[in-house]
């Protein structure tokens, strides 16, 4: 049994800390959980360092108490509208064409393809290999030993705003805890819920959280698109609060209790009543009105994701459909709405590789954290395999 892995997701609605262990059979067991809110985070970015710090402290303390482990180093997932991706290609001349491509050539081309010119304040989060090309022969997955003169590599570079990433990490450093690695939330979700078969056939995972909507698309098991939108459940809540002139906290309750993305038929009798409370005079409105507000927002979010994916051309190769996860996946009827918009089957993400979950943490909002543990487990296992195999895995993982 290997050492425990700690995953931290600083989400807009709450901060989640999961402590996991990789069992001998390769499955992951969760041995500690901590969560806390309000997080002082909006749209995935820290807006109140004090609040976020206090919230993180609570979540870490709870995780330490339940796992009986003192937390020293954590993996951090990040998201936010500042995160974007670009495709970069690098080429190198093969040193000894007759002997074929060797490891040194591959290392060299990776180095070149990773070098991308970004704005000063932007930072690369991942460089993910897509395809090699040897002398015009495209879509080579592993070029080792192949003959040719010129080796090229296409990489997907995921990058984000340096300041935003640092702000998030600093909150953790403040607690005298080390950040082992930073991973994009969309990749974590993909890791947690997508099977190899799905990735082969082509699949999109959309994680609609409180502050951000993260997506990642795969085709032939290779990353095809990824990004993050600063849109999420918070927007749904805000729309409800504005539409019916009720406080944000009440709007959030209403959304969780009655929220549906399918516009229900109009029935004036079928009303939601909010009883009066201190500072609030009470209110009632129809289910029809509520679902109209929610539908308008969720429909728009999904359509923007589709637009982003359409721009990359990946939608033509989505054999395994769309997988939904994140807190907003709990909204009633969202799979039907997504099905209409994407025109492919839409399902809810199920965790692949985790055993023995308490039901309290078996919801779509925990998916990113589980994915992060799996991701970290894979990354750590490759360090103990320094040879070629480890190298290839590290490349696939984008390290």
């Amino acid at each position, binding site marked *: 049994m290997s050492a425990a892995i700690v995953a931290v997701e600083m989400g807009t609605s709450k901060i989640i800390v999961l402590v996991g262990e990789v069992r001998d059979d390769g499955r992951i067991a969760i041995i500690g959980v901590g969560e806390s809110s309000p997080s002082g985070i*909006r*749209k995935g*970015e820290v*807006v109140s360092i004090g609040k976020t710090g206090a919230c993180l402290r609570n979540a870490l303390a709870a995780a330490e108490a339940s796992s009986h482990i003192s937390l020293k180093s954590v993996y951090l997932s990040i998201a936010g*509208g500042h995160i974007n991706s670009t495709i970069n290609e690098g080429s190198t001349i093969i040193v000894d064409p007759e002997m074929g491509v060797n490891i040194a050539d591959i290392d060299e081309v990776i180095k070149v393809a990773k070098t991308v010119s970004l704005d000063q304040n932007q930072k690369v989060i991942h460089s993910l290999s897509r395809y090699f090309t040897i002398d015009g022969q495209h879509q080579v997955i592993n070029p080792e030993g192949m003959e040719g003169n010129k080796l090229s590599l296409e990489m997907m570079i995921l990058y984000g705003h340096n300041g935003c990433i640092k702000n998030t990490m600093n909150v953790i450093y403040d607690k005298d805890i080390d950040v082992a690695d930073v991973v994009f939330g969309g990749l974590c979700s993909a890791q947690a819920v997508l099977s190899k078969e799905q990735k082969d056939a082509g699949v999109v995972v959309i994680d609609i959280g409180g502050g951000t909507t993260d997506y990642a698309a795969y085709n032939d098991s290779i990353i095809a698109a990824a990004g993050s*939108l*600063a*849109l999420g459940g*918070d*927007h749904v*809540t*805000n*729309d409800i*609060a*504005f*539409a019916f002139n009720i406080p*944000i906290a009440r709007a959030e309750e209403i959304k969780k209790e009655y929220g549906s993305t399918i516009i229900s038929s*109009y029935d004036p009798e079928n009303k939601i009543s909010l009883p009066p409370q201190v500072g609030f005079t009470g209110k009632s*409105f*129809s289910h*029809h*009105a509520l679902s*109209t*507000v929610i539908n*308008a*927002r969720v*429909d*728009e979010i999904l359509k*923007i994701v589709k*637009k982003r994916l359409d721009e990359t051309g990946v939608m033509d190769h989505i054999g395994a459909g769309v997988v939904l996860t994140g807190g907003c996946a709990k909204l009633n009827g969202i799979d039907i709405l997504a099905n209409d918009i994407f025109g492919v089957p839409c399902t809810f993400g199920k965790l692949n590789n985790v055993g023995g979950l308490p039901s309290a943490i078996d919801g779509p909002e925990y998916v990113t954290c589980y994915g992060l543990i799996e991701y970290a487990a894979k990354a750590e296992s490759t360090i103990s395999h320094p040879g070629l195999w480890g190298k290839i895995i590290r490349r696939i993982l984008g390290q």
Partner: protein
Amino acid sequence: MNQHKVCIMGIGGGGGKIIDRISALSADGPVLVVVNTDIRALEDASPSRKIKIGQIRTGGSGTGGNVELGRLSAEDDIDKIKPYLKNAELLILVVALGGGTGTGATQVILEQAKRDGCHILCFVTTPFTFEGETRIDCAKKALPDLCKVSDAVISIPNDLLFESIGRNKMSQAFIKADETVGTAIRSIWKLITHPGYINLDFADLLYTVRGAGGACSLAYGAGKGHNKAQNAINELLESCLTKQSTLLAVAKVAMISIVGGEDLTIKEVGDIMGKLNSIFSKDTHVSMGTIIDDAWRNKIMITIIFSDSWNSKIVVEEKSNVQKEEPSLIPLPQKTTGAKIPKKRKEAQSGLRLDANIKKRFDGVNPTILYGEDMDIPAFKRHGIKIPE
């Protein structure tokens, strides 16, 4: 309102023909634009601004009644239309519903106009019964969508419009019908851009039409000669558009505009209003205005916009909203002799209200701007979706 800030846009074949008539009526005046997928129809149209859309999709030969094609054509070429919308405070759209271009492209153009902050007034004619179920269904489906996006929709059923002139030769009947609608639109344009002695303005028009739930009917009557006032009122009352004045008797709201030359007398206006008031029921909400246009010397034209349903509550709510949007820090402009019009919606929205209420949850965070829209503003509000109580 500055007359150059009004753009009258005809979409599709039917809309284009009406624009032709308007341009024939006046050399000066509003910006006239025709948008069509059919190149031949555009060649016929006389106004100077012609916008050809969907060249790639249709090859310039119209949509053949395919609404989706009309919509896609407008989406492809919306950039050609945008400059006119940007410069307009009021967009008057003229469409014959039922066809592919008219029905499909209109929705796209309306949505763009809304984003550009135009006030929108739609004149639509609905197809003849004999044109068949498909076209009628198509028009019926499109109409509620237009009402959602527009400030006001005035619909004129072709069946009624042609009942009075149906015995004319076909070619003349169509010219006459186009002229009728053209004149009505021109009189409305005139009403809200030119001050008359008795003033009506765009706010009055909105008051009338919004209270009616966004959709109204239109009727007209014209007369000339010595007894021109009497002739005009007779034509109006006998007109099929008022169903021989029975529709007026049950009208809840009516806005009347009287167009005449320099020779229009107070007595004539008094006679017309006296006659109309005797037909309306006591609780009908009536407003009226006059326009002096020397092209109408020795002639009178009465245009009436009316509806049999009207709810003052809706209007009051709208008005109170408007007040909230504009903080009273800036003194309200005094009503001048010219017509008043609410400020462009875009300007009003960038004011206090948005930051204070709509985006509360996102205070102090960078706004999410995607594809030119501020996504933090509620989606239903940006898309003009009405939330029922």
